């Protein structure tokens, strides 16, 4: 996210950003195992940003794929897809120190398969959530070059999720053969509520700007998720990304 990258002065700016990263995921799904599965892998992302003086809209698609294993050496393959968007409203303060507040929406799908399990080896979870978002940005100059440090963060508060039923990967609503596709979905979703479920992320990054307004960035994306019911799932991801942003 390259907010406040350049001065807009009433004009609308469009940016596209591609990123590639490496990092770590740690997962504990109590319905699968009491042990944490941890591993390193690759991630990539594609995002679009539309920015005016007072408002920034940001949309990001991301994907990661890893092999994760536990302390006993049992392993899983792990794949994650996410679509996140931010709507941020600038709080004027000073030229090169910005604070923006707004809301965010996070949608993501995790799929993992335990290599040691025969049947019912797959698990998948889907979440759609809404919450607050904030961004702090600071410009600075180093060796006569312009840099910006940004720290966007969000915390998801309300939404819904689908998760596997008690022992099978099918969500509960789809275990009843009388339920249609939509009814199965409706009967499967559960509320994502504060104190019951948590999802938060922080994404500090430093960007270097070229004269063209394009930039290259180094970012660390951290995300934490927890669902407490019925069998808790905890997930913690941290990925280093290198990204390139282009003005459209």
């Amino acid at each position, binding site marked *: 996210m390259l907010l406040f990258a350049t001065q807009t002065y009433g004009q609308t700016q469009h940016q596209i950003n591609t990123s590639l990263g490496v990092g770590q*995921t740690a997962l504990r799904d109590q319905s699968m195992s009491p042990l944490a599965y941890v591993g390193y892998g690759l991630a990539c992302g594609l995002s679009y940003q539309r920015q005016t003086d007072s408002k920034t809209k940001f949309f990001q698609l991301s994907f990661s794929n890893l092999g994760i294993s536990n302390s*006993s050496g049992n392993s899983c393959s792990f794949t994650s897809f996410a679509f996140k968007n931010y709507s941020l409203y600038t709080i004027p303060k000073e030229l090169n120190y910005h604070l923006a507040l707004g809301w965010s929406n996070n949608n993501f799908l995790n799929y993992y398969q335990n290599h040691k*399990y*025969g*049947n*019912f080896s797959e698990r998948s979870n889907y979440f759609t959530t809404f919450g607050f978002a904030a961004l702090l940005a*600071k410009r600075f100059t180093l060796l006569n070059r312009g840099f910006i440090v940004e720290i966007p963060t969000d915390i998801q508060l309300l939404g819904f999720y689908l998760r596997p*039923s008690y022992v099978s990967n099918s969500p509960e609503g789809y275990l009843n053969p009388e339920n249609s596709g939509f009814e199965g979905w409706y009967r499967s979703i559960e509320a994502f509520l504060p104190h019951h479920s948590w999802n938060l992320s922080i994404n500090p990054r430093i960007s270097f700007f070229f004269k063209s307004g394009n930039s290259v960035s180094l970012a660390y994306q951290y995300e934490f998720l927890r669902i407490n019911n019925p069998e808790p799932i905890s997930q913690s991801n941290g990925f280093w990304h290198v990204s390139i942003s282009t003005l459209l």
Partner: protein
Amino acid sequence: MKRIFILALMAIVISGCAKQFLADDPESNPLSNFEHLWHELNNKYSYFEYKSIDWNEIYSTYRPMVYEGMSDKELFDVMASMLYELNDGHVNITSPFDRSRNWNWFLDYPANFNENIIYRNYLGSDYKITGPLHNQIIDEALYVYYSSFGSSISEANIDELIDRAQGLNGIIIDIRSNGGGSSNNAVALASALTDQDFDYGYSRVKNGPGKDNFSPWRKLSISPRSGSRFTGQVVLLCNRSSYSSSNLFAQMMKSLPNAMLVGDNTGGGGGIPAYGELPNGWIFRFSATQTINPQGEHIENGVPVDISIELSPVDEANSIDTILEAALSILKSDK
């Protein structure tokens, strides 16, 4: 600027430490592992009521055998003995040094099968190896030996098999001592033996920790495959070692009007097994579903054959398979 650098430094410090934000793995000692296993089975095993098993009583029997400082092998033996009480071939625990089992479903019964006789006296030297389906034309019938549902059958395998069976008296499918595998192979084979949809039972999945927490029953059906099919007489040969997916396939054939089961009742295994893991990393397996036939009877303890025949020791000594000979006679007489 200083604050920015502090935040950047924090980012670097937390990177690579994603696991640190999760709670530690649970303590692994004999008692915690035993308790985890007992509770997981207590909440998820699907046949307590059907088998009239008092799992709490089993806990009170085996819990006193667990103590701090016991070796892994001693703990394994206690767990294996506890799981043995479930009398279920789908239940076991796997450690790096052993896998427990309860094989009474076939060890308590006659074998009724001798693979050597099949290969030497019936399949001979020129049988076809159509994927995992070893087949030979014997007395105007196509004999098919399928040793494991774990070996995948392709559509091309089935096309070839059906093509070979055309014009013959029937197909004899031998799943004796086939311990199961993927039910997809069972469905694929059954779908080549019918011209119309048929139901062969119902299944339901455990969906909560209560003993009666199950999903609604889901109908199990077979639809004819789109490729070539054989709708003549089918004889299925079974024994007590026909288990799990073989048991399910036997139930499919039991529900097929043009099929007949010959030999000994199957060994059972009506629940699809699910898996779990202990704090020490050992993997355990247990039945997590139930399957019943269209009449509402469980097939956990096997599917009864239509014609019960045992492998005669005298025949066996003379390299004759009594059960296969009976199947050949049935197809000849039905011609």
